[in-house]
């Protein structure tokens, strides 16, 4: 059975289509999610490449090292920006009309998730082209690259579910910092600039327990064709999705109860 012909599928497709239509007709909404990762890539890969000369920095290319970070970061921010759109839809009343018109209201989350994924895919294409043009090296096999893509897609889905949960609880754009801040914290306390064993102080401890660390390290290993801890990363991302599904569902219930 084609999932897009079910009631759930049709509703999710319609919501995703609307989101993507808004994104295309209002470039100001998509530009930040494209420009920010490129900017981070330029600032980190360009400005900090000397750090790779530090003793014990054992990764072959700093540009590649930062490319994987920017890929995972944009996966998360694709979800974050979609959360802003959900909050705006609630604030301006459109989401309430969608709640009334949708038979299975979980389709709302499904639709937003599809839109978030398409948005992220667009960003990944742009970031990848720029990274390859500026010296990122890809030594992994097709299977390795599909592994990176799978991790990024799962992170994007988890972030969208998290952002949906917050947006549906507060139903206002003023909740944007509550979506953005945790995402920012989880991203920045992972091994962003150097491998984990070169991090000092409290961030080293936080990075050990940060789920983003496993996904980043697996991605960085896959891209150089030396897979390591891939299953752990997929498991962590899957665990995040499981937790966030519950978070998003309860958020949806709150939104329904608020009317």
């Amino acid at each position: 059975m084609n999932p897009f012909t079910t009631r759930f599928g049709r509703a999710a497709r319609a919501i995703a289509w609307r989101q993507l239509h808004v994104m295309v007709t209002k470039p100001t909404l998509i530009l930040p999610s494209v420009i920010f990762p490129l900017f981070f890539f330029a600032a980190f890969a360009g400005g900090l490449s000397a750090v790779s000369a530090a003793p014990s920095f054992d990764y072959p290319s700093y540009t590649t090292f930062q490319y994987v970070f920017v890929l995972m970061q944009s996966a998360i921010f694709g979800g974050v920006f979609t959360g802003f759109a959900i909050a705006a839809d609630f604030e301006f009343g459109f989401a309430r009309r969608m709640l009334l018109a949708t038979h299975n209201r979980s389709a709302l989350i499904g639709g937003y998730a599809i839109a978030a994924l398409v948005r992220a895919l667009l960003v990944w294409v742009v970031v990848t082209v720029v990274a390859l043009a500026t010296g990122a090296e890809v030594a992994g096999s097709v299977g390795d690259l599909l592994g990176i893509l799978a991790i990024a897609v799962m992170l994007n889905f988890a972030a969208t579910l998290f952002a949906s949960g917050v947006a549906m609880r507060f139903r206002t754009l003023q909740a944007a910092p509550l979506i953005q801040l945790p995402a920012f914290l989880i991203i920045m306390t992972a091994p962003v600039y150097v491998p984990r064993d070169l991090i000092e102080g409290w961030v080293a401890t936080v990075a050990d327990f940060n789920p983003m660390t496993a996904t980043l390290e697996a991605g960085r290993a896959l891209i150089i064709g030396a897979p390591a801890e891939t299953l752990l990363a997929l498991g962590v991302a899957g665990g995040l999705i499981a937790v966030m599904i519950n978070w998003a569902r309860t958020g949806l219930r709150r939104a329904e109860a608020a009317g």
Partner: protein
Amino acid sequence: MNATATALRGVGLGGVSAGTLTQVGYLARRSITRTVRQPILIIPSLVFPLFLLAVNSSGLDAATLLPGFPTNSYLTFALGLTFMQGALFATMGAGQSIAGDIQHGFFNRLQLTPLRGPALIGGQLAGVTLQGLIQGVAYLIIALAFGAHLEAGIAGVPVLFALSALVGVAFGSLGLAIGLRTGNGEAVQGVFPLMFVLLFLSSGALPRHLIEADWFQTVATINPVSYLIEGFRSLFVSGWDGEALGLAFGVALAVLAFGMWAATTALRGRMERT
């Protein structure tokens, strides 16, 4: 027509007189009170730069092992960026305040008073100056508590705060110009990412001579924010570096001059529109 003419005369951009100073005093008191009463204006500008400082000083500590790195403490090195980041928050604070005044009608009421333009600009910047000083004190105390070193010693503290206040006012005047020109808080927020571009494409994370990418080194050399960061940093890392401090104060004064010109022009434009 007469009311408009009176209003325009009232906010004229005449020379500084005792009356103007009194007006600056009133608006400064309002601006400072608003800053103190709304911790939400100060807290982000304290928390975010300190968080980034904490993350960077741990994550980039390995950079101190690079040959030619000027200190063995990345925390000490990174403080210049923290002070600069605080100043960029001042830009937003000043812009948001004046945009809020415009959106909520306070600015229109001011037009009905014999208030002078320089008083409005000067008064609005008082809160920013206070915010810059509070931030400076907080950054310094917290950084020293966590092991940072101020090479310039105790005599460097007033210079540090003077530079912090000057940079805060300079960037605050830019925020004021943006707020006056747009009259919209969201538009002011929209400029924030641009400020971050200036911050990140600078010598904030590594000394310029250690930046490997030629294009990045060129951008960092052109970017005036690099010189401001290096001025702050010199007090922590190298002590009394006349060139770095001279460049920092010079750039800050140039930004202030440009910001005041832009704010005055924007104020004049807004007067004509309303």
